[in-house]
């Protein structure tokens, strides 16, 4: 019976229902979109890192610690034979890492010099830009952030100074052959990329590497010597730690959005219910009990939530789908700020997000329908009939 009356009220109220449903649906949309955007941003950062840097995992020289450049001097050797076999089969590629200094425009800049095979296809880096520069002493690939920092452009030459295996300083002229546009600042800021054989020759470390990155799906090798296997889980742990550390922030953002949505819904519902004080009085006069009045209005709120979910799907669904498919272009390149943020933000709608948001918004709608109708139903019917406004 209540459902029948609630449906009649909801469908009969046309504009009022339309506005309530629209406010709720918009709140649904806003929460879903913003949270999905945030999730998408974090997932994108992880994906970019895997795509451009980690691939399937790596074997590290036992001395190698990427966070401590002082270890680079010792972190090099010829890879163990099983790992070398992966390199030979093009299932992996070696990288030789060293500290260096560059002198763009006469200024000294400490950098990390990395030798990489130009023909590698395992990570998404434009290393083939390093090919075909036999006339150049040291062809160098840098990122946009580094180029901006050092004020270098393609074709610019600058001095590179490094410490070779005999602990002797050496220097030569490097030339920028390509500036890559990467979203992974870790490949960009403070890095110069040089063909592997050139770096091996510069450092007098023929055939040596600091780490070897292997492709996705490559099985672990048994005879890895003292090199340390680093799988994806290990290599993304920093990223996951950042995401984990950011969770409270994400939850606060979610709660703020939810609170804003709740306020919007609350205003719309309270206004709607309090305007119906006389109607509530009439219902009580013709014999509806107080609990039923409260039940009726709460049920109307519940139906409002169901309608809102449907409207969100129908009206805002295409918008959510469009952004999910094509993303939103960002006007600023955040990689220069040391952030892995996509140039197009693509929201990620997880089932958990959609279900939890639907449940939470529905609960809010029910609560904000229940509270004012309970207060009105507690009024004396004579006051409600007069349309007396409650304080």
């Amino acid at each position, binding site marked *: 019976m209540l459902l029948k009356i609630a449906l009649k*009220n909801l469908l009969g109220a046309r504009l009022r229902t339309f506005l309530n449903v629209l406010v709720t649906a918009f709140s649904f949309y806003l929460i879903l979109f913003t949270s999905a955007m945030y999730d998408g941003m974090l997932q994108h950062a992880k994906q970019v890192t895997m795509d451009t840097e980690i691939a399937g995992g790596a074997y590290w020289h036992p001395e190698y610690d990427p966070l401590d450049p002082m270890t680079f001097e010792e972190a090099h050797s010829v890879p163990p034979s099983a790992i070398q076999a992966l390199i030979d089969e093009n299932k992996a590629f070696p990288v030789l890492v060293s500290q260096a200094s560059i002198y763009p425009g006469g200024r000294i800049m400490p950098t990390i010099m990395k030798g990489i095979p130009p023909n590698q296809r395992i990570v998404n880096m434009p290393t083939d830009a390093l090919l075909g520069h036999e006339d150049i002493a040291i062809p160098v690939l840098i990122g946009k952030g580094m180029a901006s920092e050092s004020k270098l452009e393609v074709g610019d030459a600058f001095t590179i100074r490094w410490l070779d295996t005999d602990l002797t300083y050496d220097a030569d002229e490097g030339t920028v052959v390509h500036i890559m546009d990467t979203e992974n600042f870790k490949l960009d800021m403070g890095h110069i990329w040089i063909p592997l054989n050139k770096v091996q020759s510069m450092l007098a470390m023929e055939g040596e590497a600091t780490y070897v990155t292997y492709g996705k799906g490559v099985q672990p090798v048994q005879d890895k010597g003292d090199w340390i296997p680093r799988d994806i889980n290990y290599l993304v742990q920093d990223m996951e730690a950042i995401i984990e550390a950011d969770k409270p922030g994400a939850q606060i953002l979610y709660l703020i959005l939810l609170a804003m949505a709740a306020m919007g819904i609350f205003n719309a519902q309270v206004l709607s219910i309090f305007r119906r004080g006389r109607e509530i009085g009439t219902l*009580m*006069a*013709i014999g*509806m*009990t107080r609990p039923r009045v409260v039940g009726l209005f709460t049920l109307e709120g519940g139906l409002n939530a169901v309608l809102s979910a449907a409207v969100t799907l129908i009206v805002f669904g295409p918008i959510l789908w469009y952004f999910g498919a094509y993303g939103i272009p960002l006007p600023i390149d955040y990689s220069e700020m040391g952030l892995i943020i996509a140039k197009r933000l693509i929201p990620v709608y997880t089932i958990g997000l959609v279900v939890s948001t639907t449940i939470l918004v529905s609960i809010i709608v029910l609560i904000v329908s229940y509270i004012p109708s309970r207060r009105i139903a507690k009024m*004396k*019917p004579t006051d409600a009939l007069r349309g007396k406004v409650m304080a």
Partner: protein
Amino acid sequence: MEKDTVIRIKGLLKQFPIGGQFFTALKNVDLDLNEGEFTGLVGPSGSGKTTLLNIIGGLDSPTEGQVSVLGQALNDTSHAERARLRRKHMGFIFQSYNLLPVYTVFENVELPLILNKVDKNERRSMVAQAVESVGLRDKMDSRPNMLSGGECQRTAIARAIVHQPALVLADEPTANLDAENSHHIMKILSNLNKELSTSFIFATHDEKIMAYLRRIIHLGDGEITKDEIIDNPKAHD
């Protein structure tokens, strides 16, 4: 209680707290009303008509005294029991109609039957009968905002009588209507009173209504000042 006594009130006192003091709306009210009566509570504004009507309808509670309606002592009943009494055995007609704006005439009249869980087919025929009796058959699908004041009040009457209550309480039912509509409404109510044996109580100070009443209870300053039986009211001419 006698079989045909619909309302019995003894020593009724009703006070409202106002600014730390009490305003006495009704005092020393004793009243018996029998089945089928067509009675008016008459008096100036503030004389206590509406308050008495509300107490009889169980919408308000007495401060002191005994009020018994349709054999049920309202002093001892819960909100839910009073709601049930109204739902089953009473109809209300308000000065400002109090129709639900989003419902059609049919739906407004149908509402008490839905609350009483009347079967759908039976509902349809009862609503049709009630709407027919107030002459609104061609307005069944209209919403209140498409109706005149008189039509709205006729819809409210149909809603009040659709479940064939024993008692109809009408608070200034013609106050918002012109003379022609007022007479039309009172004729309808008078006919229904005769056909259904339903007791009607009006709170009014409208002279046009008084001409139709068979019993007039005069109220002044919250007390019954006069209780007169009209032998030959206009409506029964």
